[in-house]
């Protein structure tokens, strides 16, 4: 699979908030766990395309045949949540979480190991946040299973919400793990002997 990221051809732009940033991003991780994130990301990518087809089908059905796709609105709403959580770990791994990296980058040029240490602390905070998210969405998943929560209207179209809730649990947990591994990589750079090691410099 092609590495995720910029589009090299045409006038393809870089991402809006791209920049692979300092050490750690886009690198192999413990047990190559980033491959799991990449697989989930691929699933989310296919889901985006399916979303496009669904909305098109809904418009065509409505305008040409007077028959919109039943449940399209509900499915789109639920899909967006699913897509975001499927792609969350890979987006983090690729360094695409929005952040102001100017100060930390400037520090990295002068004191690479110190910058890596700061970066490690920031990543630990990220791990804490996503661990809390996982804890917060877990009961929502259980509730969705228990009461058989669904969107839509009975006798017309219904879709259960538990699969998306499960995706939220898995996505946020894997993102928390990714944060921990990024922090570990940072602390390894911070503790290393050779200054500037670990990709802090080109």
């Amino acid at each position, binding site marked *: 699979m092609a590495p995720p990221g910029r589009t090299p051809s045409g006038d393809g732009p870089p991402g809006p908030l791209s920049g692979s940033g300092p050490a750690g991003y886009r690198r192999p991780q413990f047990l190559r766990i980033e491959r799991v994130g990449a697989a989930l990301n691929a699933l989310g990518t296919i889901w985006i395309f399916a979303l496009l087809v669904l909305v098109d089908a809904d418009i065509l059905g409505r305008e040409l045949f007077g028959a919109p796709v039943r449940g399209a609105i509900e499915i789109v709403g639920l899909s967006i949540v699913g897509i975001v959580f499927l792609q969350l770990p890979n987006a983090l791994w690729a360094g695409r979480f929005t952040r102001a990296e*100017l100060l930390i980058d400037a520090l990295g040029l002068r004191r690479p190991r110190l910058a890596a240490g700061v970066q490690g602390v920031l990543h630990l905070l990220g791990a804490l946040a996503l661990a809390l998210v996982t804890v917060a969405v877990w009961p*929502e998943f259980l509730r969705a299973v228990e009461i058989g929560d669904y969107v839509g209207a009975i006798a017309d179209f219904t879709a259960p919400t538990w699969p998306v809730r499960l995706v939220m649990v898995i996505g946020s947990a894997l993102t928390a793990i990714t944060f921990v591994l990024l922090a570990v990589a940072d602390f390894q750079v911070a503790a290393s002997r050779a200054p500037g090691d670990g990709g802090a410099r080109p």
Partner: protein
Amino acid sequence: MSAIEIGAWSLLAMVLLVVSGLHIAVALILLSLAGIWLIRGNFDIALSLLGQAMNDAIAGQEFGVVPLFVLMGLLVGVAGIGKDMFDVADRMLRRLRGGVGIATVFANAGFAATTGISIASAAVFARISVPEMLRFGYNPRFAVGVVAGSSVLGMLIPPSLLMILYAFLAEQSVGAMFLSGVLPGILLTLVFCGGILLIARVRPGYIGGTARGLQDGLVRGDLGRMVPIVLLVGLVLGGIYGGLFTATEAGAVGATGALLIALQRRQLDLAGFWRVLIETGHITVSVLFLIIAANLYSRMLALSGLPQAIVQAMVDAELGVAGFLAMFVVLVLVLGFIIDSASILLITVPLMLPVAQALGIDLVWLGVITIIAVEIGLLTPPFGLVAYVVKGTVDDDRITLVDVFAGAAPFALMMLLTLLVIIAFPWLATALV
């Protein structure tokens, strides 16, 4: 500590952590959680609000606009439309002093009607029009400045990722926000062109360039190649304006049209399309996860009573609409020096919205004002993201980051002027809505 104080302290901590490089979503989540915990004295309440934000904040058909319009913009980029637009404008205007600069502005305005990301415009035109200007002997500082400056049109002329973000934060319709950007976008385009012509007259040396007649004029077929993209933009924006599509549907139509154009031009293979889809996903995640985090932050602010306290202070100070707008714009501009544009919107809009509502300010108009003010921050050091992109893309040792910031400064001034005009004449933003 009172709830208001807790709210204020968590806000301050948030800005500091964001500046020091913490991911914005993480900062919003952690400090909102801490704030709610302290205010309510109960961590379970905080967690349950977090769960609700995760569930509900982006669960709606309208959030489909993000991936669909991002996909449209990326596909148009891959199809090479930006280069075509520039070629047409360049051939028409090349003889004029500063003409290649004006061509860059027009091409940017046209490209902006297909893409919602200023960074994308900056990267495209840094690659296309800077070499062209250097070839004709333009002052490098002007060349990079005009590219950086005019790329802000990308997020003012619809579609626009910043407008989508604002619409979600202020609970306005995305379609209305898009339409509100049309006239201000055209105005800013004209101001940029006028500014370049003025500089060319007053200080021609600053622009440089030779205006020898080259063998040019329009090549037949140039304009013909523009027809599909013009039709597509007309369909997307006209569809929203005429109420034919919701914003999400317009995004799907736009993305599908862009896909067909890219295929027809043979610019897209399966691997390329996959890369575009992955990029779309990453941008979508980075925007929508911020929306989720901002949702929790709004809940924390509501619990703290901080916005209401600001409303009260404003009323007591008898600031009025003009005073509030002046303060708000200055706040956004100052924040623009230290943090990036998405963070500014996320932090200030939930805080200021209740104030604007209490003063009876039109939120669509406020949106346009906010976006232009935020975009000025894209051009100012040290966090002017666009300048970094231009510098990175041009990749020429003769052109420094200082050149880009200095070159963009006149354009930032022109934006400020345009901002004042839009504050003075609100109908510019609201006429089409």
